[in-house]
C-alpha cells in the first residue's frame, strides 16, 4: 500500500489537450495528479488506497464517465467524482449527482469552480477514508467473535434480556452470560450501549 497516505487527483479524459492542461494546472495548484485517457485505464490501475478524487469526463471512447461511476459505486470506492463534460444534459447531471458526484462541470469551467469542487471532494474523501478506516477497525473487532458470539451480539443489540436470548437460542441463560462476557472482553467494552455503538460502526444493524 505505497499510496496509503497520498492524496491523488485522477484526471480521466480521453481528450489529450484537456487532460494535459488540467494536470498542468492542478500540479501548479499543488495537487498530485494522475492523468488517464480512459475508464479502462483507471480500472486497470492498482486501487488507490489514499484519499483523492476523480475528475471524470462524461463522454469517452469505451466506458463513459457515468458507467465508471456505476462500477466504482459497486466497488465501494470512496474517491468522490467531479464530472466534466462538453455537452452535458440536465438529466445526465441529475443522475450523476444523485449517485454521489460532487459536481458536474461543463467545459469550459472556470478554475474557481474546479478548485472549489476539488477541495470539497478531497474533504469528502478524507471523511470517507476516516470512516472507512474506523469501520475497518470495528470490523476487525467483530471478526474476532465466534459465530455463536456474533449471533448473540446481534440479539443483544436489539435489547433482548439474557433469559430471552437463551429462550430464543434454546440454550442455558448461564451460557448466554458467558458469551456476553467474552464479547465484552473481545470488544474491550463494558456496557451494552458500547456494544451497540461498535456494532453499528461495524455495520451490523439493530434490526
Amino acid at each position, binding site marked *: 500500500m505505497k499510496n496509503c497516505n497520498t492524496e491523488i487527483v485522477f484526471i480521466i479524459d480521453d481528450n489529450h*489537450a484537456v487532460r*494535459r*492542461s488540467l494536470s498542468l494546472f492542478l500540479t*501548479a495548484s499543488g495537487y498530485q495528479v494522475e492523468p488517464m485517457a480512459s475508464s479502462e485505464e483507471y480500472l486497470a490501475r492498482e486501487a488507490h488506497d489514499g484519499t483523492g478524487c476523480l475528475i471524470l469526463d462524461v*463522454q469517452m471512447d469505451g466506458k463513459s464517465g457515468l458507467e465508471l461511476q456505476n462500477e466504482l459505486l459497486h466497488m465501494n470506492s470512496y474517491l468522490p467524482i467531479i464530472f466534466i463534460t462538453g*455537452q452535458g444534459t440536465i438529466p445526465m447531471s441529475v443522475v450523476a449527482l444523485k449517485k454521489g458526484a460532487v459536481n458536474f462541470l461543463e*467545459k*469550459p469551467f*472556470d478554475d474557481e469552480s474546479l478548485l472549489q469542487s476539488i477541495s470539497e471532494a478531497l474533504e469528502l474523501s478524507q471523511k470517507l477514508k476516516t470512516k472507512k478506516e474506523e469501520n475497518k477497525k470495528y470490523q476487525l473487532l467483530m471478526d474476532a467473535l465466534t459465530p455463536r458470539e456474533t449471533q448473540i451480539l446481534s440479539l443483544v443489540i436489539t435489547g433482548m434480556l439474557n433469559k430471552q436470548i437463551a429462550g430464543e437460542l434454546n440454550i442455558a441463560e448461564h451460557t448466554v452470560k458467558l458469551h456476553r462476557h467474552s464479547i465484552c472482553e473481545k470488544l474491550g467494552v463494558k456496557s451494552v450501549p458500547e456494544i451497540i455503538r461498535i456494532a453499528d460502526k461495524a455495520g451490523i444493524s439493530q434490526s
Partner: protein
Amino acid sequence: MLLTNEVYYLSMKRINYFLLLFFFAFTIPRQAFSIEKVKTIVVFFALDVNLPAYRGFLDGLNEQFSKTPHQPYNLIVEYMNLSRFSDEGYIKNIIALYNEKYEAVEIDMLITFGPGAYPVLKNYGLNLMQYCPTVNIDIESNIPTNAVDPSSTEENVLHINIKTNYRKTLKTAFELFPDYKNVYVICGNSPADKYFMNQTREATEAFKETHSIKFLTGITLDSTLVAVRNIPENSVVLIPSYIEGISRIPYSTTMVVHIISTHCKAPIFTLSDDFIEGGAIGGYVYSFIEVGKQTVKIAEEVLNGRAINEIKVDEDSFNKHMYDWRELKKWDLLDSKVIPLDSIIYNEEENFFLEYKWYLFGGLLFLIGQTLLILFLINLNKRQKAVARQHAENEQLYRELVREDRLSRMSELTASLSHELNQPLTAILYNAQAGKRFLETGKLDDKQASEIFNNIIEDDKRAGSLISSVRSLMKLEDREKEKVDLNRLIQETEKLFNSEAIANHIQIHLKLQNQPVYVFGDKIQLQQVLLNLLFNAENSMENNSLENNKIEIGQQHDDGFVTVSIRDSGSGFDNSLKETLFKPFVTSRAKGLGIGLAVSRSIVETHQGTIWAENLPDGGAEFSFKLHRYNEEL
C-alpha cells in the same frame, strides 16, 4: 407543326408532278397518233393587210382554231390589194400567180373576204375554186365596187353578207348619252367610206327630231381635226368608215378613230369592232372577230364532209354589244343600264386584286405562313425562356436544398461541435491558469513556460481548424471545384463527427491508405455527402444495443475511380425502399426531411459519380459512392 405542313406540301407537289408525267405519258402519244391530216385553208382578203376588219377576222379565226386543238389547221393568207391595184393586168397576174402557187398544194377550203375578192377570183379563174368549198364573206355586198354579182354562183359556195345595224348602233350611242344632242359623223372619201356614210345618213333620219346631226366629209383629216376640236361639249362623234382621205391618201378607220380621240373630248362611236385598238367607246357594233369565230365553225362542218350550201348562217348574230372598258370608265358608264350584261368588254383594266389574285393569294399564304412561323418562333422563344427560367429556378432550388441539407446537418452537429470546440478552449484556459499559478508560486521555469505556450498554441490551432471547417460548411456561396484529397477529407469529416459518434456510443473505424487519393470536386459538398452518410449510418443504429454501434469508413481505388464505402451495424434498410432510397422525402424516421440521401445523390451526380446502397449479409448497410480519380493531365 410547320414541318409537317411543309412535308405535306412537298409530297403534294411530288404527287402533282407524278400526275403530270402520267398525263403526258398517255395523252401526248394518243393525240399524236390520232392526227390523220393537216387541213389547209387559204384566205383571200380583197384589200390591204392593215385593214382592221381583217385583223379582227383573223383574230377570231385564230382564237376559234386554238379552241379545237384536235384538228390542226394550216392557214394561208393572201392580200389581193384590189383597192390599190385595180387594173386587169394586175388581177390576171395575181390569179396566175395563185394558180401556179397552189397547183401542187392540196387545199381543203377557201375563204374570200371583202369587197370584190370572191367575184375577181371566180371570174378570172382561180383553179382552186373548181374543187374547194368556199366561204365568201362580204361587207354590205351591195357596195358599188363589187364587180360580180354573187347571187349567180355555183353550189360549192357559202355567201355571208355582213350587214351593219346602223339604227341600233345609233340608238345605243344616243341612249348611252341621252343629253348629248349634237352628232358629228366623220367619214373618209373612198367609195366604201361614202357608202357607209350614206347608210348612216339614212339611219339618222329617225333621230332628226331629237338630234342635230352634222357630217364632216370631203375635207382633209387635218381640217376634220380642227373641226372636232371645237365641237360643243354635249356632242357625240360617229366614225362609220375612214379608209381613204382626200387625194386618195390611205388611212385605216382604227387609226383615224385613234387620232380623232386624241383631239376631241366627245365620245366616239364606230360601226364595227375595229375600235378596239383604242379611242372609241364601242356600242352595238359589227364584230369581225365574231365573223372569224363563226367561220371556223363553218369550216369544221365543211371539212367534216357537210355540203357547204346546207349550212345556214344567222347574219344578225355578228352584231354584238362590244365596249372598251377604259372608255366606259372615262365616261362613267360602267354601270349603265344600256349596256347589257352579256356585252363583250375589251381592254378591261384588270382590277389589281383580280389580276394579281394568285400572286396576292400566294403572297397572303406566304404572309400567313410567315406570321405563323413568327408566332411559332415567338412562342418557342417564350417557352425556351420559360424553360430557362424554370431551369434557373430549379437550379436555385437545388442549391438551396443542398444548403438547407448542409445547414440541417450542421445543426445536428452543433452539440457535438460545441463539445469538440470546448475541449481546446478548456485546454487553453487551464494551460493559462497553470502558467499563472506557476508564476504566482514562483515555480515557473523556462521548460514549463515553453510547454504551456506550446500547448496553448497547439490547442488554439485545433480550435481554429475546427471553426474554419465549420465555417466553410456553413458558407452559402458556391465554390470552385478543386483537387481534393479524399482521404484527408474523410479524416476531417470524421473529426467533425467524432463527438457525435462518442455521444451515441458509436465506434468509427477508418480503413484508409496512407497516400492521398485525389478527386476533382467541391470539397465542402463532398464533405456534406460524407456527413450525410455518417448521419444516415448513425440513424440506422438508433435501436441497437450500445456495444454494437460501429461505423466503418473504407476507401478503395483503382486507376480510374475511387470508391468510398460507409458500413454501419444498424438495422439496414427495407429492400422495398432500395429504388426510392435516394429520392427526396423518403425517410423511415419520424424526424428529418428525408433529403439527405437525395442531396447526396445530386452532389455525387454533379461530380459525374454514382451512389448506391446495399444491405450487408450479417446486418447493417453499406452506402458507397464512386468518383473519377483526379487526373493531372485533364
